[in-house]
């Protein structure tokens, strides 16, 4: 299975929506506490267990998240620790990048998500307690969403409704927003502790998962939000990221400070269907390929990026 060793600690990994073999990785020096960051664009060798770096970009501060554009195959957007949001064109060499940089967030930007349906906008969420909406053709943010009372660790678009997104915050609330409305349309007090991540189901646009400092992943249906559909126990520490599969309706991947990546099927009794312990430090980034069913990638503070097929051992060579 492909493994890539980065010079800095990994924070996030994303498969390209255009090329099966391409990934972007966000990394940060000194665990993202102090120092520089770097974005790597990786290529998987066809048919062989190799991975090569095609280009990398240095940043003055940690890169906490990265996402691909859904409208331009070579465009990347990065969430930076100094509060900036930067756009890169991987078709251009490092000296020409970033092609744009926005400095609006007052604190660290934790997440960035591109709109998969409208394909003209993206969201960022920040430790300044806000989420910002950006359009690719605008010089500044279009809107700022200010209801959260603590760090917003994730903001993610609904896969079918182009104006709807969810945000997960350290204020222990999950909020659902419609950008056409002045305020959030729903507030779910999803956990008793900070919520570190959320993701929408790809097949049912009313279902989301949240992951928390309380070590659980919960699955919610906005049509009956009082009680979660499922509570997934199994991680030994805070669950840093959660991701719904693009290929199987009820399959969820999660990664945790307990250094493991887990696979869950929230609709079966024994929900934990897979556990991978390949990381030797906090596992903080997880993604599943849209183009290749079952292909997964993870990254962690051990400076490694793994790409593997579900059911296989990521460390197998």
């Amino acid at each position, binding site marked *: 299975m492909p493994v890539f060793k980065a010079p800095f600690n990994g924070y996030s990994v994303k498969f390209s929506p255009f090329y099966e073999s391409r990934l972007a990785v966000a990394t940060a020096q*000194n*665990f*993202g*506490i*102090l120092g520089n960051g770097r974005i790597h664009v990786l290529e998987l060798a066809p048919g062989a267990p190799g991975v090569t770096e095609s280009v990398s970009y240095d940043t003055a501060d940690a890169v906490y998240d990265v996402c691909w554009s859904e409208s331009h195959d070579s465009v990347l957007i990065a969430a930076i*620790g100094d509060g900036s949001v930067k756009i890169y064109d991987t078709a251009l060499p490092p000296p020409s990048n970033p092609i744009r940089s926005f400095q609006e967030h*007052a604190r*660290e930007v934790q997440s960035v998500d591109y709109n998969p349906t409208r394909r003209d906008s993206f969201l960022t969420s920040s*430790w300044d*307690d806000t989420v910002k909406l950006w359009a690719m053709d605008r010089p500044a943010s279009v809107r700022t969403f200010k*209801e*959260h*009372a*603590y*760090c917003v660790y994730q903001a993610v678009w609904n896969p079918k409704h182009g104006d709807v997104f969810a945000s997960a915050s*350290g*204020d*222990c*609330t999950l909020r659902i927003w419609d950008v056409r409305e002045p305020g959030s349309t729903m*507030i779910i*007090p999803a956990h*008793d*502790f*900070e919520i*570190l991540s959320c993701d929408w189901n790809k097949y049912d646009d009313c279902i989301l998962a949240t992951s928390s*400092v*309380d070590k659980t992943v919960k699955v919610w249906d906005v049509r009956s939000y009082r009680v979660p559909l499922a509570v997934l126990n199994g991680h030994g*520490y*805070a669950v*840093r990221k959660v991701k719904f599969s693009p290929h199987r309706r009820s399959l969820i991947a999660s990664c945790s*400070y307990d*250094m493991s990546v887990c696979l869950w099927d929230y609709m079966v009794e024994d929900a934990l269907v897979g556990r991978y312990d390949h990381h*030797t*430090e*906090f596992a903080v980034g997880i993604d599943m390929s849209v183009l290749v069913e079952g292909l997964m990638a993870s990254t962690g*503070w051990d400076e490694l990026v793994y790409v593997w097929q579900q059911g296989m051992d990521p460390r197998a060579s």
Partner: protein
Amino acid sequence: MERAMERQKILLRHLNPVSSSNSSLKHEPSLLSPVNCVSEVSPMAAFGDDIVIVAAYRTAICKARRGGFKDTLPDDLLASVLKAVVERTSLDPSEVGDIVVGTVIAPGSQRAMECRVAAYFAGFPDSVPVRTVNRQCSSGLQAVADVAASIRAGYYDIGIGAGVESMSTDHIPGGGFHGSNPRAQDFPKARDCLLPMGITSENVAERFGVTREEQDMAAVESHKRAAAAIASGKLKDEIIPVATKIVDPETKAEKAIVVSVDDGVRPNSNMADLAKLKTVFKQNGSTTAGNASQISDGAGAVLLMKRSLAMKKGLPILGVFRSFAVTGVEPSVMGIGPAVAIPAATKLAGLNVSDIDLFEINEAFASQYVYSCKKLELDMEKVNVNGGAIAIGHPLGATGARCVATLLHEMKRRGKDCRFGVISMCIGTGMGAAAVFERGDSVDNLSNARVANGDSH
């Protein structure tokens, strides 16, 4: 390096979540030992069991018997702020575990009944209890401290600390208090408890060398700052407009009014006019009606809960209640109370007086206010920056809650530049009270903007 510490703190909260049982980390990265990091994050890490203020409001403060609330009864005054703290936070009133009201002059049982009536006026159900507390001029602050202590003790999760005084309805005895026990005359300190407050102000001025000019200057500054705050619209954040009535004393005609501005402030106050006033407590003394606090009507209310609950409800945190101290001092110079109480409260909070960015110190009398600031070597640009009781008024039981609203809203405006604030009062019969607050997470956007201060000396 401050940013690095902030990031460590956020990460540590993921690993050692607030109020969970600690389990040792088996594979912790060596850079991040929780023990080391926590000690570095001190003194004021944010924890889920912090007691926080999510709302603090007050009425305008009006001149007793002549101002906007002269015909407003105390239960109507109190009801307006009790209603505001639950309405503006969308809190279900039935979730409130207790309402504690500081109040001084009215007969105790009468006032307790009126406060219960006020809670019904404000929409609270039968299930929400009410009680009063009287620690003289600090009663409103004592109410807030009592609620914070009760939440911490686990008696309830949400409480309201409030204060109310209607000095139009109830009067301080003109000649000072009269002890019912003749034996008080046999104990000099007990006898001094009965001194009119103005005499204690003269004692402070004489014993500690506070001049008439210093006192008058403090009064001018108080009025100037209060007038500027009103003119700039700053106080609108903290003041709840009250719809009430005013009765013409001759025709008895009632007129509906809305009171939203402090009406005791004299923008034109100046040294020459103040110098003409007689010293009414002592011949050739220095305390006058102009450099003493005004007799007033007003109310305030503060909503408190644990941080974890505020976060769960999605409520912005206006401030954190960090410590509270009451200290005793000689009754004959009761005004020095803040000079003793403030160091006690900051010490309890693990801070020095020099760490405090903003103060609200009750100006019962200019003499004790000036003395306290000099004794503690305070930067006057950090004290009573929007005026004090000499200009605004001193509705005895409400002043503490009024100061919480004033302090926390000003800290919010100042943002990251202002982290700790202190409120303090002297207390009749010889005490000082002080509380330390930390700025909450909710700050205005201009988080590093220094408030433009038009004052110059």
